[in-house]
């Protein structure tokens, strides 16, 4: 396996971990709601964590502050 393929597999793995966390949080907030709890603060914190994960790992917000760079 060449270096580029290794990097790709590594990034795929990170993407999968993020999806797992998103699924966990989403099911968590669903369960909180259907069991009759109305913990607004918890819902807000969960949404913020989920948004942070997507912004950081999927949207690569860090690229914005990294200065001019080429792909990848």
């Amino acid at each position: 396996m060449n270096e580029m393929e290794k990097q790709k597999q590594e990034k795929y793995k990170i993407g999968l971990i993020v999806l797992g966390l998103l699924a966990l949080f989403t099911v968590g907030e669903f369960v909180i709601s259907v069991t009759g709890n109305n913990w607004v603060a918890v819902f807000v914190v969960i949404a913020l964590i989920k948004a942070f994960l997507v912004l950081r790992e999927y949207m690569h917000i860090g690229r914005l502050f990294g200065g001019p760079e080429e792909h990848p």
Partner: protein
Amino acid sequence: MTSNTVSESYAHRLATNRLGLWLFLLSDAFMFGGLFITRVYLWGDTRPELNQTLGLIVTSMLLISSFFMNRAETAMAHGDRKGFLRGTLVTIVLGIAFLAGVIGVEWQIAPFGVSEDAYGAVFFMMTGMHAFHVLTGVIFLLIVWNNARRGRYSVEKHWAVEAAAVYWHFVDVVWIFFYPALYLIGKVG
């Protein structure tokens, strides 16, 4: 012009493009933020009786579509064009399924009309505006997918792919906040 100058020029353009896209997304986020605040103000600590399971299903579709979009962008950045085409196609299908779930099902079974009360007005405005963004995202992805099929992007130059992916994830982030606001928070009114 030397190849080095061309390369620097592209890198500079890429940085400028990124800034422009993120500024656009920021302005769009203010609009969605306004809708979110409208929901908080008009619904307060209540929510309409919506199908929570359907909400979970459409949310899952969007989250999984983001995963495949990330996979597709990663594939393009590593020279795997087939992987990109596959991942983007799955993203598009999931995006259309999300639209079908929200517009084709949820809108039809909603226990209120669009102009009936505050529940209807806020619900249709929030989901409608979001669905419009999903639709434009799907169109954007179709264009990028077709261009990639024709071999217009490379490992070094695929800004359009990155832009489409970031836009798609942005739509996902908006829904991350809309989902609990519409389906989970508050007592059924």
